[in-house]
């Protein structure tokens, strides 16, 4: 069983000027590809029981111990990046609508309050990692962050929106100015995609099922 690098749903330069073409290309063809390659190398000869990387990551505690760290790191990297590409769009930006907006307002207040809180979490993540808007098993929205390539799926939450704050995600354009990158990200968030992930996650009985629309 092999995992594969998913194609981007848009061109490398589609998110310009917010996220530059060079960053997108290296991020996808080098960093994401390396996670896929190292994951495949680590699991060679093992049957993980599912072709879904989200299911593998959600069940990280049942992965054989000798490959668990490699799967957490590289499988997490594959799952996280696969999601990341799908929640950005050249037609993104703006604000969420409908049920997602309503739930966000109930949890965080007005949209700008969510935005500020998410940005603070993303800027405050020390070292490599991700900031997330996730749905808990109790179907409540939370802003959280994880180190390195850990996924919310690993502790039972369903990621709806993820922002990569590894330096490789922004260094070519923003260098040390992570807060600027975070603001730029808000210009390309595909809230329609996030909203559809929210509706699926509300219905789902397990986080991996809800998350699998991100791709394999």
């Amino acid at each position, binding site marked *: 069983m092999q995992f594969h690098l998913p194609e981007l749903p848009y061109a490398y330069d589609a998110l310009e000027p917010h996220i530059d073409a060079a960053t997108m290309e290296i991020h996808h063809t080098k960093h994401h590809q390396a996670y896929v390659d190292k994951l495949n190398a680590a699991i060679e000869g093992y049957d993980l029981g599912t072709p879904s990387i989200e299911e593998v990551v959600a069940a990280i505690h049942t992965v054989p111990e000798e490959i668990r760290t490699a799967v957490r790191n590289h499988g997490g990297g594959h799952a996280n990046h696969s999601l990341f590409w799908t929640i950005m769009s050249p037609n993104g930006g703006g604000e969420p609508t409908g049920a997602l907006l309503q739930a966000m307002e109930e949890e965080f207040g007005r949209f700008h309050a969510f935005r500020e809180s998410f940005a603070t979490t993303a800027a405050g993540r020390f070292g490599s990692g991700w900031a997330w808007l996730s749905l808990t098993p109790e179907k409540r929205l939370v802003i959280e962050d994880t180190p390195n390539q850990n996924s919310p799926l690993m502790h039972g939450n369903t990621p709806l929106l993820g922002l990569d704050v590894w330096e490789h995600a922004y260094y070519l354009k923003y260098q*040390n100015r992570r807060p600027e990158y975070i603001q730029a990200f808000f210009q390309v968030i595909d809230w329609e995609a996030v909203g559809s992930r929210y509706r699926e996650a509300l219905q789902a009985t397990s986080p991996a099922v809800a998350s699998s629309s991100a791709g394999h």
Partner: protein
Amino acid sequence: MPFQQPPLPFGMNAMKPFLSEEQLEYHYGKHHAAYFKNLNALVEGKPEAGMSLREVVVQSTGPVFNNAAQAWNHSFYWDCLSPKGGGEPQGDLAAAIVRDFGGVPELKKALSEAAVKLFGSGWSWLAADKQGKLEIMALSNADTPLKHAKEPLLTIDVWEHAYYIDYRNDRAKYVEGLWRAANWDFVAKCFSAAMK
């Protein structure tokens, strides 16, 4: 301002081709400077403001530790590099490397591998205990041998900001380049100090 960033011990353009001027301007001028700035803001009016940076690193936790350790680690990292670096360690240090790793090439290989394999941000360290026994420590984020009662001798910064302008995703090539700039005189000085 209790803590001041020390001057870079070489010119911004002195490390080419290993590190470009642009790489150093960001790394020293932005990242390292920011850790000092953040630390000074965090400790203002607190007991830590009266300590040495090294004491703060050893005693603190949380954001104070992160910024203090990153301030200290980077100052140490610059001292590990020299435009006249490279070559081979000599004397007692060389003997200890042969004793604990089998030889200098073996040490370089082990420290390089630890640097390349470290997942996420962090530092690959050569450290010594009080008896002079050497070991490799691959530590995440701001963590340092000082926190583990070990004395740092040599370090490779593998936060992506340390090499991304010059090497992009090719961390292995950056690590390989570092050996041509390694300041073995400084490493030897740290080694003798470790056993005092």
